[in-house]
C-alpha cells in the first residue's frame, strides 16, 4: 500500500503544480514509512519540504498555504502525534470556508499512519479517528487496499475541503497489488461492499477489514453468509449503504480497532437504531478495542479485535435473533 500512496502523490504533483508535500522527514528520508519516497528528488525541496518538528506548525502552515491557493498534503508521523495539531485542525482548518463564507478555503490532506499491530513503541499505534470524525467540516477517509489507497488519496487531494487520511499501518506492507498509475480517483463519502451476504452485515474500516474478511470466510464455512462493508469514508458515513444492507440481513456487527466508547461504531449503531430499527432481527454488536489505553506491544494482540472475537460476536448475534 505504501508504494501506491507514494505513486498517488507523484501523479498529482505532476499534474497539479499547486500540490505541495510537507511533514517531518518526508524529504530525503521519504517518510518514516517511505510514503513520500522519491518525491523530493523529483519535485524539489520547495514542493516537498521537511518541516521543523512541530505538528501545530505543520497544520497551521498548511492552512496558511491553502488559504493562499496551494494544496498541501501534510504528513503527521503517527496518529499519536496528531494532538498538537488538533487546535489548528478543529478551530481553523475545518471551518475556514464556513467562517469566511467561502472566501478562503482549506484544500488540505492530512495523512497519518493509523492503528497498531506492528510491535511499535508507545504512542505509535493509535486509532483515534473519533477525535476527527466528530469535527464538522472534516472528511475522514481510510483506505484498505493499495488500489483504494491510490484512488482515495487522489480524491482527497482533489477535494476542495480538508480530508484526514488515515493509513492503516499494518496494511502498509501487508499485500502486494498491481495498481495502474492512471490518475483515476475513487469516490469519497461512499462505502464499499467488499463481500455480499445475506445473514449479517459486518461494517469495518482500516486495518480491521482484514480480520473482518477472514471472519466472514470462516463464518461462510459455518453456513453464515456475511456481507462485509468497508466504510472507507469514516465521516460523514455512507448511511444508505449500511441501512440497505441491514434491511437485507437483519443483523449488524461493527468491527473497529478503536476503543469502543464513543467510537465511530457507536454512530453506525445509532444510525441503524434510528433509521433501521425494525429491520433488526438481533441486537447490534460492536467488536472493538477495549476502553483502555492501547497497551505496549506485548499485549497488543489481546487489545486488537481478533478474528475469533468477530466470529464469536456474529455467532451470538445469530443465536440471539428473534
Amino acid at each position, binding site marked *: 500500500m505504501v508504494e501506491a500512496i507514494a505513486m498517488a502523490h507523484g501523479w498529482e504533483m505532476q499534474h497539479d503544480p499547486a500540490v505541495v508535500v510537507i511533514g517531518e522527514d518526508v524529504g530525503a528520508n521519504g517518510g518514516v514509512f517511505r510514503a513520500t519516497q522519491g518525491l523530493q528528488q523529483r519535485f524539489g525541496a520547495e514542493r516537498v519540504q521537511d518541516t521543523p518538528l512541530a505538528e501545530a506548525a505543520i497544520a497551521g502552515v498548511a*492552512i496558511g498555504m491553502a488559504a493562499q491557493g496551494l494544496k498541501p498534503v501534510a504528513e503527521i508521523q503517527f496518529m499519536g502525534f496528531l494532538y498538537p495539531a488538533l487546535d489548528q485542525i478543529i478551530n481553523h482548518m475545518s471551518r475556514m*470556508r464556513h*467562517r469566511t463564507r467561502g472566501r478562503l478555503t482549506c484544500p488540505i490532506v492530512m495523512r497519518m499512519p493509523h492503528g497498531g499491530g506492528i510491535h511499535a513503541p508507545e504512542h505509535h499505534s493509535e486509532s483515534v479517528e473519533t477525535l476527527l470524525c466528530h469535527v464538522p467540516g472534516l472528511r475522514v477517509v481510510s483506505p484498505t487496499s493499495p488500489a483504494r489507497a491510490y484512488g482515495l488519496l487522489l480524491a482527497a487531494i482533489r477535494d476542495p475541503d480538508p480530508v484526514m487520511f488515515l493509513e492503516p499501518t499494518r496494511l502498509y506492507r501487508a499485500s502486494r497489488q498491481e495498481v495502474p498509475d492512471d490518475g483515476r480517483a475513487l469516490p469519497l463519502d461512499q462505502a464499499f461492499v467488499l463481500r455480499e451476504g445475506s445473514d449479517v452485515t459486518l461494517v469495518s474500516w482500516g486495518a480491521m477489514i482484514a480480520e473482518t474478511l477472514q471472519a466472514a470466510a470462516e463464518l461462510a464455512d459455518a453456513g453464515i453468509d456475511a456481507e462485509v462493508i468497508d466504510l472507507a469514508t469514516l465521516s460523514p458515513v455512507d*448511511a444508505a449503504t449500511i441501512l440497505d444492507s441491514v434491511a437485507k440481513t437483519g443483523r449488524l456487527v461493527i468491527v473497529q480497532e478503536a476503543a469502543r466508547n464513543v467510537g465511530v461504531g457507536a454512530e453506525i449503531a445509532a444510525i441503524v437504531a434510528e433509521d433501521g430499527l425494525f429491520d433488526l432481527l438481533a441486537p447490534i454488536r460492536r467488536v472493538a478495542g477495549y476502553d483502555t489505553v492501547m497497551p505496549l506491544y506485548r499485549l497488543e494482540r489481546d487489545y486488537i479485535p481478533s478474528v475469533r472475537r468477530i466470529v464469536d460476536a456474529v455467532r451470538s448475534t445469530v443465536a440471539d435473533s428473534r
Partner: protein
Amino acid sequence: MRTVIEFRVESLQRLDPDGNAVGELPAFALDPDEVLRMYGAMTLARAFDTKAVNLQRTGQLGTYASCLGHEATHIGIGAAMRAEDVLAPVYREVGTQLWRGVTMREILLYWGGDERGNDFSGPRADFPWCVPIATQTLHAAGAAMAFKIRHEPRCAVATIGDGGTSEGAFYEALNVAGARALPVVFVVVNNGWAISVPVAAQTAARTLAQKAIAAGIPGLQVDGNDLFAVREAVSAALERARGGGGPTLVEALTYRLSDHTTADDASRYRSAREVDDARALEPLLRTRRFLEKADRWNADRERALLEECAGSIDAAVADYLAAPRPSTDAMFDHLFANLPERIREQRIAARRHAGTGGH
C-alpha cells in the same frame, strides 16, 4: 567560558509624547498629506471603536474588543503594508483592518454574530479575525511559504498580543519562519495586559522583542504609540522580507486603555492611576501635536474630521442594523463545497425548526 554569540535588542522612537520628532524622520513623515491621511485613519478607528462599545452597551452588538490606545500601532502596520500583502490579525486590529479596506459594516456584522462579516469585500486574501490566541501566526507563516514557493513579491503580517507570546504556536511560527527565511513580519502588540495578567507575570523576558532570538531572527522594540516609529520599523521589516531576507519580530509597546472586552471589568485588577499614566502617552494626542506644530492642524479641522467620521460611522451602523438575520440555511452554507447527503438532510430538518430556540 567562551562567548559564542551576542545579541542586542534595539528600540526605535520617532515621535515623543509631546509630538516632537526624535532623530531623523522617515520620508513618509515628511509628507504632510500622508501624515494627515494616517491621522485621519487613527481618528476614524477611535471614533468607530467608541461607537462599537456603545452599541454593545445598548444591546445592539455582542461582546466587543476595543482598540482604544492601539491606533498608532494599527495604522502604522496598515500603512507599512502593500495592498497585495496579507494580514493575519487577532480580534483587536480594527485600525489595520479599516486601513486595508475591511468595512465598518463587516466589522460590526462579525461582532454582531454574523459570519458574513468575515467575507471582506476589500482585502480578499486577508485572514479573518482570529480568536484562538497565537494560532494566526502560523497562518501568516504558511501564507508566506506560499508566496515564497510561487516567487511572488508579497509578504504576510501577523499581529499577536503580549499574552499571546506565551503560547507555543507563536514560537513555532517564529521558528519555522526563521528556518525557511519566510517573508513574514510578526508584530507583538504589547499593551501591557492579557485580560488580568500583566506582562511581568506572563514571562521573565524583559522585552518581548528578544523572543525573536530563540528563532534566530531579528527582533526590535518600537514605541507603539508612535505612528512614525511603527510604520518605519514595519516598513523596513517588510522590505527585508520582500527581498528574501526573512522574517522580523517587531514589539510595539502600547497600552490597553479600555477593558479587555466589553465583558471585562479591568478595575478588578489594575489601578486607575496606571491607566491615567498611560493615557498621557496615548497616540492620537501626540500625532495631533506633531501636526499642530507643523501648522497643519487646528480645532476646526479636528471638528470637521470628527464630523466626517461620525457621518460614515452612522451610515455603516445603519447598514449593519438593517442587515437581515441570516437564514437558517446559513449554518450549512460553506461548510463544505460539496455538502454530504447526511448533512443536506439536516439542513432540511433545521428549516423545519428554525426560530424555535430560546437563546
